[in-house]
């Protein structure tokens, strides 16, 4: 069953469900995400959706979900437009490389997988930003940002991964193992 995961078509139902999840994520990020701060750091729900898309759907869908999530995030940020799209595409793809492991994994695997991918995503985002002339994005603030986002996204993945599974595989979600 797992071997077939990467080959199943990303059909219209799945695409519209993923778009619905992305829309909800934007609303949550704009409201709860903007209000909530841990050590001065906001959660990064759009990155979490990109990572979960990869963990659940594989490299190709991870890249596609990451690109869309990043582009949506870019609409509300003052960083160079397209920066989140670029970094989330790469992270979605990279998270997808572990999808075969994560599909049958236990919840600690989901937690650490999402944590690690999110930390990598934040570092990649800041480095690409610095490369584009925003040198202030790599500062001593990067440590707390990476740490907080990694922990929050690890916990958040326990909720978002099942949601993404429902969105990407509408027909098989109920028959699948929870983690």
């Amino acid at each position, binding site marked *: 069953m797992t071997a077939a995961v990467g080959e199943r078509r990303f059909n219209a139902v799945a695409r519209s469900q993923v778009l619905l999840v992305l829309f909800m994520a934007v609303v949550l990020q704009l409201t709860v995400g903007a*209000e909530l701060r841990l050590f*001065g750091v906001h959660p990064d729900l759009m990155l979490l959706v990109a990572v979960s898309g990869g963990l659940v759907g594989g490299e190709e869908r991870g890249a596609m979900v990451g690109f869309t999530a990043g582009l949506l995030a870019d609409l509300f*940020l003052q960083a160079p437009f397209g920066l989140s799209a670029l970094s989330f595409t*790469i992270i979605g793809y990279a998270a997808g490389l572990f999808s075969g492991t994560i599909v049958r994994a236990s919840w600690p695997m989901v937690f650490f997988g999402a944590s690690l991918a999110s930390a990598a995503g934040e570092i990649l*985002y800041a480095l690409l930003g610095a490369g584009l002339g*925003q040198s202030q994005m790599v500062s001593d603030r990067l440590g707390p940002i990476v740490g907080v986002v990694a922990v929050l996204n690890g916990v958040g993945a326990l909720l978002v991964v099942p949601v993404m599974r429902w969105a990407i595989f509408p027909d098989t979600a109920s028959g699948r193992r929870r983690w």
Partner: protein
Amino acid sequence: MAVRRPTRPRFVLLLLVLTAGTIITLGYRTQANGYVGKLKGYASDVFSPVQSGVLDVFRPVGSFFRGAFDYGSLRKQNATLKAELGSARRAGTAAASQQQELQALTQLEKLPFAPSLHQIAAEVVDTGFGNYQLTLELDRGSSAGVQVGMPVVSGGGLVGRVVQSNRSTSTVLLLTDPSSSIGVRDGSVIGVASGQGLGQALRVDYIFAPAKVTKGDVMVTSGLQGGLLPPGIPVGRINRVRDHTGDLQEEVNIAPLVDMNSLEFVDVLVWEPPSTLPGAG
């Protein structure tokens, strides 16, 4: 079942990376008024009603847990009073610095002065969700006259500058953001104040030793810098002057007069940088 094609995911990745690269390049070339600004405007139009709806539902819940039933309205009233007190204080500080600089300023021609500028009152909707930019979202946009580049003030002084103006909302880059730098002066001493992050003092560069600045002085916007900001808006109080023997520059830090963490109402100053200034832009 289709035969697995391992090259397809890589092809999709390449395609999307190239697309993102193209978007970044186009965004750089067109800047704020191009298609990026318009797209952001549309996105704000679509999402801001949903956002304020959700916040209206959840904020009272939060307020309830924090205290009394009418906590929200009291807080609003308190903030309004604070803002009023602040603008009075600002006028006071500005008046003091005006006297100090009157002679210097009157020699310059047609420099508009901050307190005489028309103001647009706006409420802070949220602080934005980005971890790399310190911004505020305001509930007033281009329909109320807010334009990119206008200075934003509150309480005792400068808050930042408008960097994105949508139809009914706008985004302010705080002066504490590491990408923000503002021309400041204390008497005849001029420098550039750069943001160092939330809750941090601003670092003032290009003040050459021996400088005639003293701890406790209020630095105001210089109005130089190609006229990016009008002169005379109080920015911060000097809280550190360190002179390393042998160094060319003094190490000067200023603490912003405005507490960026608790802003609820701000004023946008209607100001357009004079485009005819030599060296502007």
